[in-house]
């Protein structure tokens, strides 16, 4: 996916002057076209990344200048209870919400992978939460939904004749679950991706399986699932990374605090607080690098293990 066609314009030994000139002009044109990205890459990625690495070994409050303090930030982190708490909250969030969302997406995609009237409408309706889910309006609404006198309790009380007045957002045991539910609710985009994957499985596989007398379960295990594993794999990585860096929903639902009892203090929220509430730019940069290590480590594990469970149709396929 990441590599373009193979070509090496650098091998110009023994070429005539006009050929070299053409080559030079080709290079020039190429760099001219990608210049906006190249400039942005250095200005907004490479330079900030290196600066961040430097800050992570300093104490820096924005007003003064950064003062090198060795690995103090990282040492402090080990002692910092909130750091460990936020790490635990984030792991819970990412490792519960992402598999749940993909599981829902997968089964609903299987259910909707048929030719019936109105199927497109169903697919679109199920996708709507993903479309609106990133908005602040929905995050704010979600808070109201799970408050003590919100709609969730009123439905529970109506259906079961109870008198529940728990604030699901206010209780440390349940607050994170409201965020997990908010993430799971948005399974629609993964569902559409899986549906597209299902459509690409060639029919003759199933026909051959029919001739061999395979039952539905057998066909699912040997044909459907193996064909979807690359898609599942890609989505798993991307969504877990996104899960590790979740910020907005936790910020809005908890009112920026990560409360109750820091039960929704996700890593990115804690990092934000250290940076922009306490102006500890060094410490928060160090935290960001720990996040890079975690994301990198996780990605590496998934990649390494992928060969044993990801099925590719052909090596050249794209």
């Amino acid at each position, binding site marked *: 996916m990441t590599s*373009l066609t193979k070509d090496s314009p650098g091998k110009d030994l023994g070429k005539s002057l006009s050929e070299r000139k053409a080559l030079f002009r080709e290079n020039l044109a*190429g760099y001219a076209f990608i210049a*906006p*990205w190249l400039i942005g890459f250095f200005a*907004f990625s490479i330079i900030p990344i290196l600066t*961040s690495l430097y800050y992570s070994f300093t104490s820096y409050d924005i007003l003064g200048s950064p003062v090198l303090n060795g690995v103090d930030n990282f040492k402090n982190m080990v002692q910092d209870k909130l750091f460990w708490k936020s790490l635990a909250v984030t792991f819970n969030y990412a490792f519960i919400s992402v598999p749940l969302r993909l599981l829902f997406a997968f089964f609903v995609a299987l259910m909707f992978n048929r030719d019936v009237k109105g199927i497109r409408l169903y697919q679109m309706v199920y996708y709507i939460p993903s479309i609106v889910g990133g908005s602040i*309006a929905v995050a704010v609404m979600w808070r109201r939904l799970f408050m003590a006198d919100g709609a969730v309790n009123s439905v529970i009380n*109506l259906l079961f004749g109870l008198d529940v007045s728990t604030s699901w957002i206010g209780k440390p045991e349940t607050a994170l679950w409201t965020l997990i539910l908010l993430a799971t609710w948005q399974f629609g985009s993964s569902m559409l991706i899986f549906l597209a994957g299902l459509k690409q499985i060639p029919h003759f596989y199933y026909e051959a399986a029919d001739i061999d007398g395979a039952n539905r379960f057998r066909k699912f295990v040997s044909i459907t699932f193996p064909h979807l594993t690359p898609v599942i794999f890609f989505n798993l990585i991307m969504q877990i990374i996104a899960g590790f860096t979740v910020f907005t929903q936790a*910020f809005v639902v908890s009112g920026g605090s990560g409360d109750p009892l820091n039960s929704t203090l996700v890593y990115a929220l804690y990092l934000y607080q250290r940076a922009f509430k306490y102006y500890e730019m060094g410490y928060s940069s160090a935290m960001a690098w720990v996040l890079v290590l975690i994301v990198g480590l996780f990605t590496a594990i998934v990649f390494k293990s992928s060969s044993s469970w990801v099925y590719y149709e052909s090596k050249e396929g794209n």
Partner: protein
Amino acid sequence: MDSKTKKLLKRNLSSLGFHTAAVIIGFLMLYPVLWMISNSFKTTQEIFGQNSFSLIPGELLTENYTRGWRYNGTTTFTTFFKNSFIYTGFATLGAVLSSSLIAFGFARIRFAGRNFWYTCMFLTLMIPFQVVMVPQFIIFYKLGWVNTFLPLIVPMFGGVPFFIFLMVQFIRQIPVDLDNSAKIDGCNKFMIYSRIIFPLIKPALITATIFSFYWRWDDFIGPLLFLNKPKLFTVSLALRMFADPQTSTDWPAIFAMGTLSLIPVIVIFLIFQKYIVQGLVTTGLK
């Protein structure tokens, strides 16, 4: 009953079961959104308490909308919507135009280091925003760009990796013969890009525009970092301040403004579904 009717009955029953399940789950999926819309017409008393779940307001209170629109009296949602459209508009324009230029470079020109830079572009996707957040803030702070839209818009002119990837995929499907014949007709690279490729990748441009619109419209952390004056707030930021738990909250008004904030999102979805699904499937972006 012969076996044929039995089979037909069975199929009809399973079809009925399917549709029942799909409709019930579909209703549950939509319920929170419908609840928000309905709340925007309710009184505060109706939103709380025993009948909170109801989707039917007692009476259609439109004054929630006028009250919400006024916000705090000094700055209104006219300003917030204007700000959101300025930010979203310019950022999207920058992101889509730049991405198409960059994609053309990667897809059509064989320059030295092309694969290297293309790989670099993908690697940046693995870097969490939190890493660049602090240095970017400090850079923009020192440039005096805080409390302007520049820190939000300018980086978009560097292109967006997802869009570049989408467009590269698209351009590679266009026959190179087109470029060659244009070259013979005297077109230079830029003319090939602007007159031939650009019009041909319209579907990819539309897809990128839609996703950029969604991401910028919903963007929260950017405005939170760089915009601290109420007159610069975007709709997202204003909604969050509106629902600040530290102050007493006017829920019907918040729901009214929340509903309005979703209108552009829903309208675009209804018009451009096809492109959205295509973009999702090609790049796996959300």
